[in-house]
C-alpha cells in the first residue's frame, strides 16, 4: 500500500492542512524538555524537584513528563528519598 502515488499518510496530512503551528510548538517543546530531563538524569537518579532545579523547568511540567516517560518505559522508579520517589533512566534510552 505504501507504493501508491500518494501515500495514505499524505492524504491524511493534506486533509488536515499539515501540523498546526500549535502542535509544532508543542512537539518541539516536548523534545527539548525530554532532552534536558534525560541530560539531568544521566547524572543519576533524581526526584522531581531535583530534576526541576537541575533543568530550570517548572516542577509540574517535570512531573508530567516523568510520568509519561515512566509509562512508556524511558525511566524507572529508583527508590525513595524522604517524601519523594526517585527516577532513573532505563538502560540506554
Amino acid at each position, binding site marked *: 500500500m505504501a507504493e501508491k502515488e500518494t501515500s495514505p499518510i499524505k492524504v*491524511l496530512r493534506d486533509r*488536515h492542512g499539515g501540523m498546526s503551528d500549535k502542535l509544532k510548538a508543542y512537539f518541539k517543546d516536548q523534545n527539548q524538555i525530554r532532552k534536558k530531563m534525560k541530560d539531568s538524569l544521566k547524572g543519576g537518579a533524581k526526584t522531581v524537584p531535583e530534576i526541576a532545579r537541575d533543568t530550570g523547568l517548572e*516542577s*509540574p511540567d517535570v512531573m*508530567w513528563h516523568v*510520568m*509519561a516517560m515512566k509509562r512508556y518505559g524511558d525511566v524507572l522508579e529508583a527508590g525513595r528519598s524522604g517524601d*519523594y*520517589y526517585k527516577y532513573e533512566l532505563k538502560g540506554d534510552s
Partner: protein
Amino acid sequence: MGELKNRYDVLVIGGGIAGMQASLDLGEQGYKVLLVEKDPSIGGIMVGLNKVFPTLDCSSCICTPRMAETAHHRNITIQSYTEIEKVEKKGRGFSVKLLEKPRYVVLEDCIGCSLCEYECPVDVPHEYDYDLGARRAIYIPHANAIPQVAVLDVEHCTFCGKCVKVCPTDCIDYTQEARHLDLEVGAVVVASGTTITPMGAKKEYGGDKLANVMNPLAMERVQSSNGPYGHILRPSDGKVPKSIAYVQCAGSRDKTLGISYCSRVCCMYALKQAILTKAYGDVDITIYHMDIRAFGKGFEQFYRRAMNDGINIVKAKVAKITEDEEKNPIVRIEMIDDDGRVEEVKHDLVILSQGLVPKWHPDGQLPAEEDTDGFFRIPDSKIHPTVSTTDGIFIAGVAAGPKDIPDAIIEAGSAAMEAAIYLESGKGAPVAV
C-alpha cells in the same frame, strides 16, 4: 456484537453502567438494541473508578465483565465513538441520525496490541487520567477499554507514518472519514450520564489554576493501581502527600454556581477515598463539610468507620483556597464547631468534591425536555421515575439526576422495562426503511 443494521427495537444513548444495564435487560428479553457511545470505549465513569463505596469492591472488576457481556450479547450492537446528530419522532418510532467519527483504525482488524502506541513520538495528556498521565497520538483508550481498539487523535498527529509500519494487522487506515448513519428505532433509552462541576467554576477555589487542587475523578485514577502515577502522589512535584483535605459541596448546594441540589455521591466518595488513602499511608486527612450525607444502605456505618479510622471530619464550608510558594494549598475556613475563629490551614493536596452535572444537553437533537436543574425532566417522577416528557423516550442513570451506581442500575432496569412495555403495547415500533 452484531453487524450494524438499519432497524432496531431500542436505541440506548450512552454506554455507562446505566446504558449497559438497560441494553442487557432489553437484549435478554429478545429486543434488538443499538447502544451508541460517543467515546472510543464504553464503561462511562464507573470503569475509571478505583473502588466503590460502601463495599470497597474494585470498580473495574465489577464493570469490565458487564462491558464484555454487553459487547458479546447477540442482541446488542455497540456503536462506539459515535455522536447523536438527531433523534426525531417518525410514525410510531424514531428516525435516528448518527455520526461515526473516524478512528483511522479498522475496528474489526485491530487486535489491541499497542505496538502503534509505543511507536508514536507524541505524548499527549490522557483524558482517561484527567490529564495527569500521558497517552500517545495513537492509543488504546485504556487497559479495560471495550472495544480494545486503537484510535488516532489526528489533532496531535505529526503525520510521521510510524504507526502504520509497525501494525501487525495492517489495520491503520489514514483515509477513513466520518460516516453518517441513518436508522429507525421503536424506542429510546437515554443514559447519557454525568460529568463533574467544572474545576474552574468557583473562582474562590483558584479557578482551576492551583496545581495541587485536584479533581475527585483524577484522585480515583491516582488511587488506582493502573493509574497515572502508580502511587498516591501530588501533581505539582510528585511528593507523597502527608496532609490531604477534601472540600465538600465544592460544586453542589451552591446557588451562586446555579447548582442548588445535593449531588448525593460526593460525601460518600470523599469518605471512600479518605479511607483508602489512609489505609496505604501515614497521612492526615480532613474532610471539610457542611453536613455529611450518608443516605444509603450501609452508608452511615461507612461514615462511622471513617471516623474510627482517624479521618478528621470538620464542619466548615471552605471559602477560599490559595497556595504558598511551594504550591501547598491553603484553605480558609470558619471553625464553626469550635470557637468560630477563622483559620487558614495548609495541606499538601486538596480534592474538590465536585458535584454531578448532566453530561449531555441535547439542544434540539432529541425531543425530550430538560428540567430546571439541567437533567432530563421526569414529569411523573413518583410513579414513573424513568419516563421522559416524550412518549417512547426513557431516562436512566445520572441523566435523570444525581445517584450512585446501584441506583443507576435499578433505574436502568426500570427504563428497560418501561421501554419493553411500550413496545409490547404496540405503541412504538421501528418503521421499515
